[in-house]
């Protein structure tokens, strides 16, 4: 379920030229990731409501906060990082945005652990998990 959500966002980012894109759950340490600019997609918060039933499927509505963390190389300025966000990330988020999906937060922080600037976008999203019912 969470991997599907991450894959959807990662694929959308790839469509607008964002590369490389990692999943927050891939277990790859930061030092082994790309030395240049890279993006990590994760799920910050997840909640689902009561299922909706049909004869052939069960639909599980959910709400989630998806984090998109863009980590800059050591020598990249905040201005260039924002430029990268505007040209590559923002179009993908605009495409995903709709009645139940919107950008809820954008922060820029210096991560002292890896000595790099990290721009984080939180996408508040809703959706549904469709579970096929077995006929027995």
């Amino acid at each position, binding site marked *: 379920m969470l991997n599907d959500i991450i894959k*959807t966002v990662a694929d959308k980012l790839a469509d607008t030229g964002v590369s490389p894109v990692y999943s927050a759950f891939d277990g790859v340490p930061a030092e082994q990731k790309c030395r240049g600019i890279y993006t990590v997609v994760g799920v910050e918060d997840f909640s689902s409501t009561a299922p909706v039933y049909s004869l052939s499927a069960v639909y599980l509505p959910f709400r989630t906060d998806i984090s998109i963390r863009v980590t800059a190389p050591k020598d990249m300025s905040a201005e260039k990082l924002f430029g990268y966000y505007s040209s590559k990330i923002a179009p993908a988020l605009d495409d995903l945005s709709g009645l139940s999906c919107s950008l809820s937060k954008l922060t820029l922080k210096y991560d002292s652990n890896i000595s790099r600037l990290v721009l984080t976008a939180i996408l508040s999203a809703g959706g549904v998990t469709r579970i096929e019912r077995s006929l027995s």
Partner: protein
Amino acid sequence: MSAFTVISTRKAVPVAIGSVTLYCESFWAAAAMTVTEASAVSGGGIVTNSAPRCEKITLTGRIADEEQPLGAVMELNNMLRAPEPFDVEYRGLVFPDCVIQSFTADDKGCDYIEVSVTLITPELTEQAEVEE
């Protein structure tokens, strides 16, 4: 058993209400039947008459108009006062011969106004024709 998860990317749907186009973010519909009952000699109740009331639909959305920020208010108010029935199409359904029963427009200081329009129609709801 298979399962797949999708993020909803549904966008607001443009709905033409006369000359106003409202990008509809919320839709609400209701219909009712009035029933006249009488007491039977046996002590039970019998329905002596029944009739469907107009279907009521409420469309809610936001309108951003740089040239005439409150232009929609004027248009909707004029349509309400001189009711000329019009068809409304929303997500594959056509509501024929609608008239505006009420509307609200809320300017909260943003660059858009929040508009809610309630329409009534006495006609049957139809399926929209699919364009090929």
